[in-house]
């Protein structure tokens, strides 16, 4: 490749400035500020533009080389590449993409199609901008003093070239940048890196999650306990409600009892009052009963007295009646008895005559056939009497001596009769006559006996009649006296009776509304009953008043209705009043239990609320964890990528050392020897990237630090040239643009270097900018094309 000319339309200080370059060594001479660096920048900008956006003018060539007259920056370069001639025209705008670029095959006069990226150099030369820059553009180390800082920089550049092929790049720097970036995530302390913090955060979240789950479990336990307590509370409440219901029923029972008491008292009172109701509508009160009782009692006393007087009257009347009856009745009786007796006597005497006649006739018959035989009747009668009397006497011997003696007497009589039967013999003609005679005889005897008895009775009656007739006269006087008294008493009695009848009527009237009055006891009972009922009314009134107070009813009807309602209340039928009363005691217990459960529930709910409020919930933490896991993963991937980058960097460095190092060493040695005109034979790069040089006829390598500044610069130039050599295409060498590379050289070295470059320009186009006229002059001697700026 060869640059034939630069035609700067407008770039930095240049406007319509053209500079031609020839093959071989071109030395462009210009004073300071002549624009040597501007031409260098123009060449680079033409091929690669500038893709950066740096705001710093010094670092941004689009700004740095903005034409001073504010015209459009641009120009063209003619160059030869691959045997073809091209013209590259570029008008600089905001960016590589927007720059207006054209490439013309000048041999054909035809445009060459370009990509859109704007870095034409990459397309044409196959070199990146960096590679192009470090290959084509060579400056000097420019460090006249080996102070420590400059020495470090020079050391770095030399080492960098040797180790990385780029004076601005060191493997340590690259590695450290990566490590530093990684350490932002994973710090050495393991605490302050972003990854460390995310990890710590995840651990923290993990603990929080664990805690939240524990909390949740605890919350579940609490909820279970709360649910259990609520059930208990519900049971207690149900029981409480039931008991309260029962207790209310107790009240209802009480009300019902009071109402019952009230209504019953009312009804009792009414009933009692009704029983005491008088026809005039008033009530028989105590006064009434007292009056009745007093009236009745007085009547009783008077009636008793009247009865006594009546008894006396009756007695008198009886006496008079007796007296009157005795006179007539007894006498009449006696007279009647006398008549009857006389009549009977006549009858018996007639009968006795008839029997006497029959006895006489029978005796005649019997004398014709006399026969004696004991009197059987007497014998049997005597025997029975004797036996009965004997037995009775034997039985009563100890107990009743008078009877004994009588009975003994009877027995004796019996024996006498027995014996008399044998003595008094009958004679019969024959048995039947004899028996008939006996009978007739007996009948006659009987009749005779009766007649005798009647005669005696008749005599006695006559005697009595006579006596009566005598007494009758005296009794008549007595009777008359008594009758007189009787009449008098009877009159008083009648008056009293009338009086008592009047009083009795009063008592009867008093009794009449309450019962039948017959006896005085009836009146007293009625009076007592009225009194009792009055007491009962009073008691009922007291009861009623008390009951009325407890029922708070305005009327009996209201009380009755309420009582009926309560009596019809089905719920009161399930329980007894006793159960209702006992509910009160249970309620006290259940109320205490309910209070205890409520307190426990409140405490549990408070605990639950505290737990719930104590932190975030599991799902929220899990989301946080997920987000942090993603974050951690990204951070980890960056660190892993950084590790890979470092690993590959290390591999690359080793490969660089293996392949590039020795080539660079060989090529550099060759150039360095040429540049130093054989004073130094070779350059060696140590493992620790120190650059060492071997001097002709001097044993052992020498570190560059021991070299002069000029020699060091020679070494640097050698490295750069060697690097360019290694990077270029063997078939198409690249031009080298050098910006005063010999500033540290003395004349001898400069001449040697120019000589070397003159030789080197046989295969490479060299464009050397210098502000040193000596260089320009020396270069002329080596056939260089000299241009003045």
């Amino acid at each position, binding site marked *: 490749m060869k640059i034939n000319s630069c035609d700067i339309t407008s770039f930095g200080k240049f406007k319509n400035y053209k500079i031609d370059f020839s093959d071989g060594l071109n030395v462009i001479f210009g004073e300071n500020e002549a624009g040597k660096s501007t031409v260098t920048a123009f060449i680079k900008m033409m091929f690669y533009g500038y*893709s*950066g*956006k740096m*705001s710093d003018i010094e670092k*941004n060539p689009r700004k740095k080389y903005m034409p001073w007259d504010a015209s459009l920056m641009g120009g063209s370069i003619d160059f030869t590449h691959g045997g073809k001639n091209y013209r590259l025209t570029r008008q600089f705008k905001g*960016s*590589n993409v*927007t720059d207006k670029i054209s490439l013309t095959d000048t041999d054909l006069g035809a445009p060459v199609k370009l990509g859109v*990226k704007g*870095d034409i150099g*990459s397309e044409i030369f*196959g*070199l*990146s*901008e*960096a*590679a192009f820059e*470090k290959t084509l553009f060579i400056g000097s180390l420019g460090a006249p003093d080996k102070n420590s800082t400059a020495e470090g920089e020079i050391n770095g550049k030399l080492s960098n070239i040797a*180790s*990385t*092929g*780029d004076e601005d*790049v060191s493997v340590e720097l*690259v*590695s450290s*940048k*990566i490590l530093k*970036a990684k350490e*932002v*995530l994973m710090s050495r302390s393991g605490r302050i890196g972003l990854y460390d913090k995310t990890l710590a955060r995840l651990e923290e979240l993990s603990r929080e999650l664990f805690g939240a789950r524990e909390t*949740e479990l605890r*919350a579940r336990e*609490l*909820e279970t306990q709360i649910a259990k307590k609520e059930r208990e509370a519900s049971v207690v409440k149900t029981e409480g409600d039931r008991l309260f219901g029962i207790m209310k029923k107790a009240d209802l029972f009480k009300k019902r009892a009071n109402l019952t008491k009230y209504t019953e008292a009312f009804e009792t009172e009414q009933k009692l009052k009704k029983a005491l109701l008088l026809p005039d509508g008033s009530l028989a009160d105590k006064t009434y009963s007292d009056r009745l009782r007093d009236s009745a009692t007085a009547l009783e006393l008077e009636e008793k007295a009247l009865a006594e007087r009546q008894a006396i009257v009756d007695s008198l009347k009886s006496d008079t009646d007796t007296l009157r009856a005795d006179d007539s009745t007894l006498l009449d009786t006696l007279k009647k008895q006398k008549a009857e007796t006389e009549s009977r006597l006549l009858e018996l005497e007639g009968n006795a005559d008839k029997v006497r006649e029959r006895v006489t006739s029978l005796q005649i018959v019997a004398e014709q056939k006399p026969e004696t035989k004991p009197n059987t009747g007497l014998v049997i009668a005597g025997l029975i009497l004797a036996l009965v009397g004997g037995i009775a006497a034997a039985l009563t011997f100890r107990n009743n001596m008078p009877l004994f003696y009588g009975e003994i007497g009877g027995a004796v009589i019996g024996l006498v009769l027995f014996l008399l039967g044998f003595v008094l013999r009958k004679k019969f003609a024959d048995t039947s006559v004899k028996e008939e005679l006996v009978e007739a005889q007996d009948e006659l005897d009987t009749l005779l006996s009766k007649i005798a008895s009647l005669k005696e009775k008749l005599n006695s009656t006559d005697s009595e009649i006579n006596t009566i007739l005598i007494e009758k006269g005296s009794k008549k006087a007595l009777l008359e006296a008594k009758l007189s008294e009787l009449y008098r008493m009877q009159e008083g009695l009648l008056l009293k009776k009338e009086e008592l009848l009047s009083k009795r009527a009063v008592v009867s009237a008093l009794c009449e509304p309450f019962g039948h009055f017959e006896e005085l006891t009836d009146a007293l009972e009625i009076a007592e009953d009225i009194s009792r009922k009055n007491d009962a009314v009073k008691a009922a009134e007291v009861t009623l008043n008390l009951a009325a107070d407890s029922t708070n009813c305005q009327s009996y009807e209201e009380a009755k209705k309420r009582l009926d309602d309560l009596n019809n209340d089905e719920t009161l039928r399930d329980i007894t009043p006793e159960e209702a009363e006992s509910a009160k005691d249970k309620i006290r217990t259940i109320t205490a239990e309910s209070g205890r459960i409520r307190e426990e529930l409140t405490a549990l709910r408070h605990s*639950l*609320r505290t737990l*719930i*409020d104590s932190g*975030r*919930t*599991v*799902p*929220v933490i899990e989301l946080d964890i997920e*987000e942090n896991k993603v974050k951690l993963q*990204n*951070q980890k*991937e*960056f660190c892993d*990528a*950084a590790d*890979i*980058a470092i690993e*590959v*960097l290390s591999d*690359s*460095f080793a*490969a*660089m050392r293996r392949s*590039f190092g020795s080539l660079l060493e060989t090529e550099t040695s060759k150039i360095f020897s040429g540049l130093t005109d054989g004073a130094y034979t070779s350059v060696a790069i140590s493992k620790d990237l120190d650059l060492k040089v071997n001097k002709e006829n001097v044993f052992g390598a020498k570190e560059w630090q021991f070299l002069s500044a000029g020699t060091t610069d020679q070494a640097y130039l050698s490295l750069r040239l060697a690097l360019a050599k*290694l990077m270029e295409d063997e078939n198409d060498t690249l031009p080298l643009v050098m910006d005063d590379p010999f500033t540290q050289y003395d004349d001898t070295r400069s001449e040697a270097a120019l000589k070397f470059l003159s030789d080197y320009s046989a295969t490479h186009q060299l464009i050397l900018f210098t502000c040193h006229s000596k260089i320009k002059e020396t270069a002329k001697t080596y056939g260089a094309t000299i241009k003045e700026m």
Partner: protein
Amino acid sequence: MPVKFFHIADLHLGAEVSYLGAKADERRFEMLATFKNAVDYCARENVGIFLISGDLFDSNKAAEEFAPSVFEYMKAAENVKFFYVAGNHDPLDAASPMNSSALPENLYVFGHEYETKELPELGIRLIGRSFAYSSMEPKNFTAVLPQDDLVNIMLLHADIASDKTSPYNPIDKDFIENSGAHYLALGHIHKRTSPAKLGHTTFAYPGSPEGHGFDEEGVKGGYLVSLSKENCELAFVKLCRRVHRVEKIDISGAFSSISAADTVLSKLLDNYGENYKNDLYKIILTGTVGEKSALKIAEILQILKDRLYFVKLKDETRQAYDLELLKNEVSLKGIFVKKMLERIAAAEEKDISLLESALYIGLSAFDSEVAYNED
């Protein structure tokens, strides 16, 4: 006549959304407004049934702040009947707002066990089961749902998972197919799913009505369901006030932070129209930038923040490298690139991204600085 009802889930009212920084609190109340928006929609459109398949609140603690407003909105929509199952975030535990005595009369909360609620006047039967805790074991709905004149609708906060290892009420296809429901109103998954059908059961996750992060991007809302025994049609109803959007935007060629920001904003305007500024963006900057780029992420972010409601940036731009050129470069950098490219070429697909990261980390180290860019 099909029955119409509205189905939402996973609103997560009260979620901290701390990633939004100063906007977080405002955003929390925007989500509440979104719920009101949904309720108003039903009231306006005469949709009488409103199903909430869990996680209405982000937590029962968060619910303390938002439940009163939610209940107030429900009460105001007196012609709408709300049916609710609690999810893993707002389980029906002792702290649940659903234990409140001030629950609206038009809200029915399903308990820990399957419950059935029949609304013969509307021709539907609803079945649901709430989470009691932040996790729930699966439980098959063993009772056979009557297949009568009523349309069966089941509400569940559940994870469709065949292995049943999910702690969040995992259900499988058999469960769905044998549920006896004509529509299974699901909650738990925040990404909306299209309706699917197993047996005669149509099921769908409506997704969260508002995104809670950039993993929940896109327009969000609920489903308006028109259901009969024979047919089930779902219409998506947008509810979200703002949309989470993740945009990869190539800023290659941007020469300054301002131009990069302009590139981003132009792209957003093109994609989402004039209201694009109201949404929430995660912008992933891609493309290549020059080695000595003047782009500064912080500067771009600041410009975008001034123009957008919320934005976060992820820088995935890479410097403009011609790797083919670089790998042939006789330098450590060249060898590094070559070796990295060799590794990438030989790597399995899963490792390529990591190796590419390593390559660009190395190149950054060669040319400038290496920095881990964390959103």
